């Protein structure tokens, strides 16, 4: 009977190793977009892996395990970021006055012709470069909502602020990114 448990445990560590090779780049990317720090992102992934290992009996398939590790990695990244520095809710005040100006919102990508739209690695590179231009709150709201599919109220709970605050930060984040991409687009030959 004990041999069965030992073999089962061996199989499970193999499952983890396989998943690690296949999905760790995605987990690390999610954590990096939150922390903007590769060391913190790697720590978050490791912590998520160990937590998943402790609860491995709860997962029936790789898909479930992958989703769970991803989610826990994101939470760990948020925790690590909070430990390193408090997430500022005030750093995006500068744009509040501009919110009423429709000119800032209207189609920053309009300057791009359809053929100018960035493609593939170039777009990814430029998005990655644009992300640090956002405040912590804007970046976290954008990443959690748009990339991690959190609900607005979940984000508000996670970041300990109001849903309205999250909406504003999310809007500013998207707008800044579009402006950045438009700028890149303008500079594209």
């Amino acid at each position, binding site marked *: 009977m004990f041999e069965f448990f030992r073999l089962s445990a061996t199989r499970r560590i193999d499952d983890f*190793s396989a998943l690690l090779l296949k999905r760790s*780049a995605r987990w690390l990317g999610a954590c*990096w977009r939150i922390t903007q720090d590769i060391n913190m992102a790697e720590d978050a992934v*490791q912590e998520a892996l160990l937590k998943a290992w402790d609860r491995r009996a709860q997962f029936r398939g790789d898909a479930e395990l992958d989703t769970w590790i991803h989610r826990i990695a994101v939470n760990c990244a948020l925790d690590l970021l909070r430990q390193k520095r408090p997430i500022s809710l005030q750093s995006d005040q500068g744009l509040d006055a501009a919110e009423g100006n*429709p000119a800032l919102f209207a189609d920053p990508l309009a300057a791009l012709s359809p053929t100018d739209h960035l493609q593939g690695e170039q*777009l990814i590179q430029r998005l990655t470069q644009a992300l640090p231009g956002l405040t912590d709150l804007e970046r976290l709201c*954008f990443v959690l909502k*748009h990339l991690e599919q959190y609900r*607005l109220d979940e984000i508000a709970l996670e970041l300990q602020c109001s849903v309205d605050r999250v909406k504003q930060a*999310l809007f500013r984040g998207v707008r800044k990114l579009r402006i950045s991409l438009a700028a890149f687009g303008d500079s594209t030959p």
Partner: protein
Amino acid sequence: MNDQQLLLFALKDGLSAAEQASIAAALEHDPALRARLTKLEQALGDLRQFADMPVSEAALNRWQSALDRAQRLQEPASRGSFWRWQRAIGVAAFASVLLMIGMLFLTKPQPPTIPITARHDAQILRRGVLQQFAESQTVLAGLGVQPEQDSALINELIAQHRNFEKLAEAQGEIKLARVLRALEPLLLALDQPVDAGAGAELREQLQFEIAAMQTKWAPAASKHSIPTL
């Protein structure tokens, strides 16, 4: 319709049902608004194109090592817990056997407690008889003070002696019953003496006999009560 509402509409979150219905209705009738939404959704699609983060060989090795270490730490614990279970089951079985033996012992018929009760009753009986002897001495000493009451007093003594005699027989105190029975003829004779002299002799004989019985049946004095001088 501002872009914030349009963004929330595109994200399908943060709008009330009424707001969503209002935007949907506006989109239906406003081609320009539909075009704005299409561009916004296209931009959002672009913004989703973040790449996976390249993972360094060092990071992969570190994570794998952490998992291996976690596995090694848990395996002995699992093995230990397995043997702990075995030991616990063994202890529980042993305790059950002990419990069963204890229950068997407790439910086994116990020796009757009659001897203890009888011994206790015998002590009470002897104390009662000694008390009776003391009262008899008092009654005998008082005979003749009121001669008209002597007969009643003697008969009462006889009745009490008979009661104690029966009690002694019932409790198996044969010797005591015999002594009490031996005193009865003397008491009867005292009730109907031939003359005053014979009555006095009988009374002295009875007092002597009773005093002897008192000495014989009195409980042994404890060592502490013996004078040390």
